[in-house]
Structure formats: structure tokens, C-alpha cells
């Protein structure tokens, strides 16, 4: 295992440990909340927190004990966190645009901008954008959906 690999693994372990700490906090909230419920209703949540909390603690111990880091650990991620965040930002942008300006504006806008930013030619982006309006129409027509027009329109 090379030094950069080791460092990448440690960074991944730190990230996972932070995530598990958040999960742990959530599980504790659920466990406490469960005690406010009736006996029947608290059974499943308590059983599951009873399984998850030791699991999280065990995993955290494994992640935080340095002696294990060199052995197996997290697999090397096929994509970097940066590119994942960038790609995820497009999804967030699409969801936010749909909520704000509705499907008929957000979807063609997303399709056109995404394809242009990915290096597609302007005319193919235009055709795809127009096509996406057609898809929205098909959804509205055949599934009889009132398409959301968004909060701003």
C-alpha cells in the first residue's frame, strides 16, 4: 500500500466516521423519541436502534483504530468527491428549478444548459430541449398530471 493510498484511505475513513457520528446522533434521537410511543409502536424502532447503535459503534471503533488502516479499508472510489459534488449540484439545480419555475421552464432549461456545458453542439442541445418540452406534455396528457408551475410563476 503506497503512502498516497494510505492517505486517501485515512481521509475516506475520517469522512465515514463523521457520517456515522451524524447517524449515531439521529439514532439516539429516534431511541429517545420511541419511549414516548405506546408499547406496540415503540417495538420496531427500539429493536432497530438496538441493532444499529452497536453496529455504528463497532464500525466507528474499527475506523478510528489506526492499526487497521493499512489492511483493507474502504475501496478506492471510482470518482473523486469533487466531481461527484459538481455532478450532484446539477441535480440540486434541476430540483430547485422545478420547484421555483415549474417543469415546462426548468426541464428544457436544464437539458439545454447541461448539454452545452458537456460540450454538445448548440443545435443538438436545442433539439433536446424542445424534445423535453414534448416529454413534459406527454406526461401531462397521458398521465393526466397538472404539471407544477413552480413557486415563482
Amino acid at each position: 500500500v503506497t503512502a498516497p493510498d494510505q492517505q486517501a484511505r485515512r481521509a475516506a475513513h475520517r469522512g465515514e466516521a463523521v457520517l456515522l457520528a451524524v447517524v449515531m446522533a439521529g439514532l439516539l434521537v429516534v431511541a429517545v423519541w420511541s419511549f414516548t410511543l405506546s408499547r406496540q409502536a415503540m417495538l420496531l424502532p427500539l429493536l432497530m436502534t438496538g441493532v444499529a447503535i452497536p453496529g455504528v459503534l463497532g464500525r466507528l471503533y474499527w475506523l478510528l483504530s489506526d492499526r487497521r488502516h493499512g489492511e483493507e479499508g474502504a475501496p478506492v472510489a471510482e470518482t473523486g468527491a469533487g466531481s461527484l459534488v459538481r455532478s450532484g449540484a446539477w441535480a440540486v439545480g434541476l430540483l430547485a428549478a422545478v420547484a421555483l419555475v415549474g417543469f415546462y421552464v426548468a426541464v428544457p432549461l436544464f437539458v439545454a444548459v447541461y448539454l452545452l456545458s458537456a460540450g454538445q453542439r448548440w443545435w443538438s442541445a436545442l433539439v433536446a430541449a424542445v424534445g423535453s418540452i414534448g416529454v413534459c406534455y406527454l406526461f401531462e396528457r397521458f398521465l393526466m398530471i397538472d404539471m407544477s408551475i413552480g413557486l415563482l410563476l
Partner: protein
Amino acid sequence: MDLAGSYLEALQVFTRPDALLGIVAGVLIGLLAGVVPGLGGLVVLPILLPFVIDLDPAVGLPFLISILSVQFLGGSITAILLNVPGTGPNVPTMLDGYPMTQRGEAARAIGASRMASLLGSFLTTILAALVIPLLLTIVLAVRSAEMVMIILMGLSFLVVLSRASMAKGLISAALGLLVSAVGFHAVTGELRFTAGIPYLFEGITLIPVVMGLFAMTELISLGARGTTIARGGTQDLAWSQVVEGYKDVWRHRWLSLRSALIGFVAGLIPGMGSDVATFIAYGQAKQLSKTPERFGTGAVEGVIAPESANDAKEGGALLTTMAFGIPGSASWAILFGALLMMGMTPGPTLFQSQLPLILGLLYVISAASLLGMLLTTAATPLLARVATVPAPLIVGLIMPLVVLGTYSARRYTADLLVLGIFTLVGLLMRHFDYNRPVFLLGYILGFRFELELFKALHAYGTWFFLRPISLVVLALTVALFVYGMLPRRSGPVAGDPVTSETPGGGSTR
């Protein structure tokens, strides 16, 4: 109704014109989904759910099952021609299929893979039909106490066989079950974990969860990779070579039969995904061969064995899903969700009351495979070109469809927020290698688990798990965990069993 009558009724239902149309549409979509690495059933199935839930089950289910059945068939084309597996289980096919292409025997490899797939799906239908009387006897003995233990065992299979950290599997399963607890309690009607938000009163619904965990997550990951998925030209495929491939399957008929049997048994066991089935089939073909040194250099047996096992798996998976309500993989969990939305709860009751439907779905697996074989044999070069579509084009066009599909299921804008949240959950789980299929299974089975647990406690008391069948299932579950704790040999053999629908061989966990 007797079993023979059920077989006939099934044939009548699924030879209706609209059902046949559903099969044709499913085959076309499934082939395209399989051919394009990065798509696959996990992306396509959730997108189509909103369209299917209002359909007659005799049309909607064949449509979905056809997609499930032929996606691997599509994936094998790119594995053989372009050295890019369309789905995870196509990896072993690639090991010998692509060397055959390099040797100028692409058409023979394609012919062999088509015929082996067809044989596998026919055999799985026959095997499943033979097993059904036995299963009917077993499900009659299943009561709530047994059902609780069976659900636990199903989850345990996925946790243990995932081969990732068992702690990760347990955490994923428990979190999925906890998500299912949001909303009204099934028995008391009490509200749980809603914080007074009316949207959560009915619980968190399936479609945004599945879309977020799988479709959006896979698309974002594909966008992050950002490269053209497959490159390379295609060859002209001579018919004489394709026929030679068909003959190869006959020459190696015992290998095909053995591999189909392996696939069928793997399908019966939850968590033993297609990845495992195909690698085991490939491994046994190599081990039992008189010339194992040819494997990896373009041996046609290396194409026949995984392709036969791959298609045979679906019949086994169908039986486990329908008879015990335990979907064995993420794709089957999505199908399970579709059934719930259509008002049917897979499990012993459905298995007894809707036997013709289940038998009909077995026919559908074979019919879809036959149609897929004919289509792929005729249009292989065209399908191979589809695989070279750039990733940004796929992401840019399909991501809006996912959002549209999520919204159209219930017409709630708030569902888009849930979609966003579960996309984040899916991305984190994927990045840190947690088990998404187990999470989904926990979420889907949570309601049922709680209901059966309640009934078991009331009917049999605290020690309900000491009933004979429950005890046997419990013992199996414990044995499974003990097996999971044993040190394992490392090696490139099976990959991850629950990545059976892995687009392009990536991770679905």
C-alpha cells in the same frame, strides 16, 4: 383450482394482445437499458413505475419482468463486441467473449450467448414449474411467527452475502427498517417520527426513495465520471457464424444445463445476485473443462456458462419474491414495490391466491428471452452503437425524466424534496460502500415485518420463534452470520453478490 388449470389460465392471461404488447415494449426498453453501460434496470425500472401502477397487472407486470429478464442480454452485446460489460453480471462473458471478437468470431460468441440465455430462461421456467408444488406445501405451513423469521433471514442473506463489512450491512438494514416506521403505525394508528408534518403522516413513499437511492445516484455518478462509456467499431456478423454459436450450445449442452441449474439455485437465495451466479457458473465451467487453459483466451464455454446462469437466475428470484415476499436483489425489490402499489402483497397468501399470475410471469421470462434473442441477433450492430452514446447526453436527458417520474406518481412537489434527500443518502452510501439494496429491502419489508411481528407476539407470545419451522429458520440465520464472520479468501471471483444489476460493473451498494 388445480395446478394444471392454473398453468392453462396463466397461458390465457399472458397471451392477451395487451399483455404481449407489454412484453414487446419491456423487451425493447430492457435491451436498450442493458446495452448502455450506466443505465441498467436500476435506473430504468423506477422511472417507469408511475406509468405502470395504474395498468392492469396482467399488462404492467409482464412489462416490468421483461425489462428485468433481457437487460443482461443487452449487456452481453457490449461485453462481447466492445469489452464493456453493460451490466455487472456480464463481466465473465466479457472474459472470453471479447477475445473471440478479437479473433474475428464475434458472431459466433453472440450466437452462443443468445442461445445459452434462451436455454437458461426456458430451463428456469421448467424448474420453477416443477418446484411450485413443493413451495405450495411449504407456504401453507407459514404463519406470522415463521414469516417474521423468514423476513429476518432474507435480510440476513443480503447483509452477510454482500461481502462488504457486516456492520455496514446491519446498519443499512436497520436504517431502512427505521425509515419504514415513519407515519401511522399499522396496528395502533399512532403517529411516529412525523414531527407534526402532515406530508409524513402516510409515511415516506416508495418512488422518491427508489429514484433517489438508485436512479439519481447512478446518473450523478455517471455524470461525475463524465466520459464516453464505450468506444470502438462493430463487426459485420455473418449468419453462418451465429448459427455456429447456436451449435456450440448444443455441443456443450451439459455445461448449459449445469450453469442454468446454478443460476436457478442462486436466484432462489436472496442476496446471491447474478454476479455470483455468473462467476460460479464460469468457475465451474473452467474447473470441469479438459482444457481450462483456453479460458480467458476466447473459449466459447466461457460465454455459454455465465449467459445460461444469468437468465436462469430470474425464475428462482421470482419464486422467492412471490412465495415468501423476500426480493433477492435491488431490481426485484423495485418490482416488489410495484406489486405493492398495484395492491398486491407478495408472500404466501398471494402465492396461493394468484398462482396463475405467478406461473404466467414465468412464461413471460421465457417469452421475453426468446423475443430478446431474435431482436438482438437481428440488430446487434445497431445496439452496439447505442452503447457509444456519450455519458453527458444520457445524464442530461434521463435526469429530468427521473424528476418527472417522481412527481407524476403522486403530484406532490414535496416528493421532489424527498427525492433530493434520498439522492444524498444514496450518494453517501455509494461513496462509503454501504449496502443500498439492503437499505431498500429493509424499507420495503419494514411494514410487513412489524405487522407480522405484532401478530406473532399476540398469537404465540414472546417465544414465538421457538415454533419448529421458526426455530429452523432462526438456526439457518445464525449459521449464516457465523459463516459471515469466518475469514474469507480474497480473490477476484465473485465480486459483490448484491451488485447484480450493476451498470457497467460499478457498485450498486
